[in-house]
């Protein structure tokens, strides 16, 4: 009997790329449910646009690059990108906005760099920042906490695909700015944090509505840690980089600087710390590098939120730190055994 010759090790690998991607999606499920509960079915409508757009963009690029379609489409990375983008977009978004963000993410952010594993920048953030800079007005159409019951699935579909809200409703009337945005504007109007926070959109932890989505995102992040899809370094460093300056400045002047708890449960903090900054392809790969990378994202986010022109800055912080990854990896190589 002749046996085939295969290289060692012969043991089966413990995981696979599609399993990793699937688990990331599972970990986002609770947050997705809470999102729908708090803001209505808008995110589901956006997802219905984003998924086909992502797969189509991916398929066309794989074809153009003469890669195996089935192998490329089933790795699940395009789906994860699409889902992360719909989490970042406002629930009331025209279809073309969602589609554009996703296609830019997959085609320019990922495939043009060489596909899965070769992109320098986080694809979801490339797509998100593109539409944020190009269509700032559409990117502010956030709904009030609790959503608009009368908007309903039909209303969301009508807006997404028809560009019109049901009779008697206007975009300006149903949408409002996010909590971080309100804080920024009101601080500019010389009001104090204490005065601002009594408004109806603020909850105990952060912005009402978002705070519970963020809690469920954190739960999903812990699930990722448990499954060893991510390691602790990046989330801990992002949170430390954001919360330590937040705590220090809050201690100095509570009327001008938001509390670290508010920062933690508002905006993209937890989504960023657990799901976006941890994208392995565009993050640093060494333990020390990941700590620096995460801390940089946290600190830059705090800086942009507090002194910059945008209410939240996580996407910009991630992209800036992505660019520093090669140098971080090069200078944080661990000491080799016996050297």
């Amino acid at each position: 009997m002749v046996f085939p010759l295969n290289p060692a090790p012969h043991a089966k690998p413990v995981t696979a790329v599609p399993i990793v991607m699937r688990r990331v999606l599972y970990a986002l499920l609770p947050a997705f449910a809470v999102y729908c509960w708090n803001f209505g079915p808008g995110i589901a409508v956006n997802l219905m646009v984003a998924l086909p757009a992502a797969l189509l963009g991916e398929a066309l690029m794989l074809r153009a690059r003469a890669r195996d379609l089935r192998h490329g489409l089933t790795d699940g990375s395009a789906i994860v990108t699409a889902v992360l983008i719909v989490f970042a977009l406002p629930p009331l978004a025209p279809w073309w906005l969602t589609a554009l963000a996703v296609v830019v993410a997959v085609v320019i952010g990922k495939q043009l760099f060489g596909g899965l594993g070769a992109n320098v920048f986080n694809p979801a953030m490339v797509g998100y920042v593109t539409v944020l800079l190009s269509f700032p007005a559409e990117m502010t159409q956030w709904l009030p906490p609790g959503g608009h019951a009368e908007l309903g699935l039909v209303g969301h579909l009508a807006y997404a695909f028809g560009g019109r809200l049901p009779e008697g409703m206007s975009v300006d009337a149903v949408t409002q700015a996010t909590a971080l945005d309100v804080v920024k504007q009101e601080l500019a109007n010389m009001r104090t944090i204490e005065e601002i926070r009594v408004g109806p959109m603020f909850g105990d932890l952060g912005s009402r509505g978002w705070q519970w989505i963020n809690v469920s995102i954190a739960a999903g992040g812990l699930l990722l840690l448990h499954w060893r899809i991510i390691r602790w370094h990046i989330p801990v460093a992002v949170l430390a980089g954001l919360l330590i300056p937040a705590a220090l400045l809050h201690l100095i002047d509570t009327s001008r600087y938001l509390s670290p708890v508010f920062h933690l449960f508002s905006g993209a903090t937890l989504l960023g710390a657990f799901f976006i900054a941890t994208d392995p392809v565009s993050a640093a790969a060494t333990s020390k590098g990941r700590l620096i990378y995460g801390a940089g994202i946290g600190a830059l986010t705090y800086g942009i939120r507090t002194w910059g022109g945008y209410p939240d800055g996580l996407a910009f912080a991630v992209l800036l730190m992505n660019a520093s990854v090669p140098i971080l990896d090069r200078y944080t190589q661990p000491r080799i055994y016996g050297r």
Partner: protein
Amino acid sequence: MPERVKIHRKFTGGLPLRPYKALSTGAAASRLTIPKRLCISMQQQSGAPAMACVTPGERVERGQLIGVPTATLGAAVHASACGRVHALEQRPVPTGSRLVVADCVVIDTDPEPGPASAPGADHWPGDRAGRLAAIRRAGIVGLGGAAFPTADKLGCDRACETLILNGAECEPYISCDDMLMRETPDSILAGAAIMLEIACASRCIVAIERDKIRALETMADAVRRFADERFTMVAIPTIYPAGGERQLVEMLLGLEVPSGGHPIDIGVVCQNVGTAHALANFVASGQPLLSRIVTVTGRGVEAPQNVHAPIGALIGDLLAHCGGLNERASRLILGGNMMGYSLPTADIPITKSTNCVVALTAEDVRDDTTEWPCIRCGECAAACPARLLPQELLRAATGRRFERLTALGLVDCIECGCCDVVCPSHILLTARFRAAKIELAEHRAHARLADAADERYLRRKDRQLREADAARHEQDELKARLAGDEASRRAALSAAVERARGRKRSPDEPE
């Protein structure tokens, strides 16, 4: 006497793996009846092969020397059964890391096993040098897998403080050391005591993985009976590759073996429990190393078990002894499923380094054909016991960037295979690193040749310049001398002319 000491620290990286050891530890080890034909490789150990000193047709006794060591790191080879030499031929034989083609002595064994050849009267002399020579003559090599000649390891003239007796056996499937420790704990300790003496070491740490409960108990009892203060026992964590000597040193002593060096560089010698047993057996009976215990296991084998088999038995004989292969067997491996290598057939003899034969089924093995791109998740780096960055090594290896490969520590890769197991992209990392090591060595050899050629060229140019210089100098000198000659000739000439003129004039002039 402390029976168990705490481990110093956990080594970095490594993985908890499914052990698959229970497959072969259910029954006591059996004994293979001497097969009709033995095929004894002259390449039994890691150094130069031995030279066969028998001829076809010649009768050999059990224990008779049939291969003499030729060079350094050699070890003698003996007939493991009596019979008649059938042929001397070249065959594929296993070494620590691959199959090589080597000279083999093929012996047709006697149907009735005769008595062993009597040991020499003085097989175990009193002095250290004599004992080292005796160990070399007995053909004792490391039985853990690498088959380094034991005499060379113990006889190293550098100071040795600690002997680590390695009974960790971290690789999945392999259980031969486990069974040996259960069977002959006293002999193992006796062997270790002899090693301590020869290596002039002051203590011996017996390291056994925590999950080998029965081996731990038997060895602990034996250590207690042995009542030697130099011996301590440590139960180490069951994390592959805890049995690697570098990992053992890190765990037990908190030290690191220098890159490219050996444990002896920091005063440590690691010996496998099987080697200690073989040494004790030789000292007690005068019998050289003729057999070893081999694990025959895997779900492709009918009756997995440990087998005491004579060196030179064919793997096919061992498999037949264990009920043969079943129809599910799809891959035959020498060693465990992490570092062992595939065998093309079972028609290959076992050597002193053969610790395990595994027949795996299709469900047990990875599919080498599907691969995704590296997503830089870094799990490989987290699992690497050498603290390398496999994801960076892969990029450097793909781009054949040799300087980068050197800086990333390719040569420090111990090829344990942990990175492959955790890779979500199913990249054949270890296989690529093995290939890259060969490429790097070739590149370095080329670079050395190129450097040598460069130097030759520069030296030649230098020499030519110097020669040209010298020639010019010589010419100048000659010219100068000639010029000097010319001047003096002219002076002489003019003087002569003057004299002649004087003489000419003189008749006209009055004196």
